[in-house]
């Protein structure tokens, strides 16, 4: 075998083995549970590229966010390591916009969640940073403050370590543009054209967000 062929084969091998297979790529993203098992909440499953899973239970007044373990994919099996020695293997099939997970006695179907300009969408972006356990909607609190800010709705969250806060303001029919930054941080940032993030105290939040912004 001459040298150029061996280099070509080596390159091919590297490319083949370093690329995730199609099913891996298709798994990545945000999945919304189709058959709502709980009337009060909708489950969103985030399959992150970094090999972690996040469960979000979206209720009318808040999003509850849970780290749901690390995953690996082997053929059509999803291995989930929940930590503390607990693990589970689920069978899956995935298409462009549908995901089916099958466990021992259950099957669950999901549809792909597409980001839009809603407060929910902005909240899911915030949840995906992994820095929050809960995002509360404060639109019903009756305070005039965010109305005074011309916002139509708002949400608040505190980072897990309680060192940072985030506020989301939704402006219907908004066309938000711009950014306010300091030396080390961005403190005001539109997440989409209608949702504005105001964050204090955690530069890492914006670092994490950078990858997530559409």
């Amino acid at each position, binding site marked *: 075998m001459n040298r150029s062929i061996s280099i070509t084969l080596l390159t091919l091998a590297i490319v083949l083995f370093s690329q995730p297979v199609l099913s891996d790529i298709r798994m990545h993203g945000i999945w919304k549970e189709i058959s709502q098992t709980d009337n009060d909440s909708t489950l969103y499953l985030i399959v992150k590229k970094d090999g972690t899973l996040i469960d979000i239970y979206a209720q009318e007044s808040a999003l509850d966010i849970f780290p749901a373990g690390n995953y690996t994919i082997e053929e059509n099996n999803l291995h989930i390591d929940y930590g503390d020695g607990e693990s589970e293997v689920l069978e899956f099939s995935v298409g462009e916009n549908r995901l089916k997970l099958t466990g021992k006695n259950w099957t669950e179907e999901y549809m792909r969640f597409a980001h839009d300009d809603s407060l929910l969408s902005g909240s899911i972006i915030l949840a995906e940073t992994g820095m929050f356990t809960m995002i509360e909607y404060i639109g019903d609190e009756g305070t005039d403050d965010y109305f005074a*800010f*011309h916002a139509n709705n*708002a949400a608040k969250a505190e980072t897990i370590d309680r060192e940072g*806060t985030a*506020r989301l303001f939704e402006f219907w029919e908004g066309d938000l543009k*711009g950014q*306010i*930054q300091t030396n080390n*941080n961005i403190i005001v940032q539109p997440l989409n054209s209608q949702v504005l993030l105001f964050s*204090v105290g955690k530069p890492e939040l914006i670092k994490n967000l950078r990858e997530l912004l559409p």
Partner: protein
Amino acid sequence: MNMLTILLALVFGVNQTTHADDIKPDQPPQHNADTASMQPPERPDNMVHREYDKNHIPECVDKRVFGYWYLSDEEDTTPFESVEYVEWLSPNGNVVTIPTGGDAKRDDLMPMQATFDCDTVVFRASHIPQDYEYSYEMRDDNLVYYSNDDGGFYYRRLPSDTSLLKALLRLVATGEVESFDTVNAEGLLGIKNATIVDLIDSKNQLMLIHQAEENMVGMIQNNGEHLALSIDPSVLALSFRASDTDQIKRVLNAAKLSKNTLRE
């Protein structure tokens, strides 16, 4: 209490050269009693918005005299925490004074005008019948001494960590501030202290937030209207209830430091 610190100083200061602490702004001098009982005077638009020709400031005027000041003493024995009023002497001759307590109403915010000559300055205000002429002398970069035949008083430059007060002074200098007040913005923004500024003749408000981190820059617009703007490296202004968005824009642009004008 609607007198300006400097006027108090002008009247009181004559005998208070080294005892500025004793000056109580809530004890207006005798000859100001008429002013205190007057109806709130009309906003002296001509003073606030007068276009000054900086070229007319004589070359011999020491430009260090312009800036942000508080009434002090020669030895700097007045802790800044006990200072009740601060003022801005802007390069166009406007003098605005605000209380440091976090709230003020329009009557507390009457502006004055300073006209400088080489060694002297005349202070006048539409609501004060008399003009006051003083000699002034820069004792160092941060200390100025005003005096006349009746005595003198010292003004010391504001410390560097007073950007919220400075931003408020610049806002008040626009002549469009009705009042301001300190509020708890914990619910809205997760920040304890914020300052709400009511603008005149409208329901417009600004919320000022002090961020200790410096070099804040940038702005947020919504459908082309100002929503948030850094008006100082550590002060963020949010616009509230913007019924007259031109006013919001005008006031914010007048109050911001020019280097914070990114991404307009």
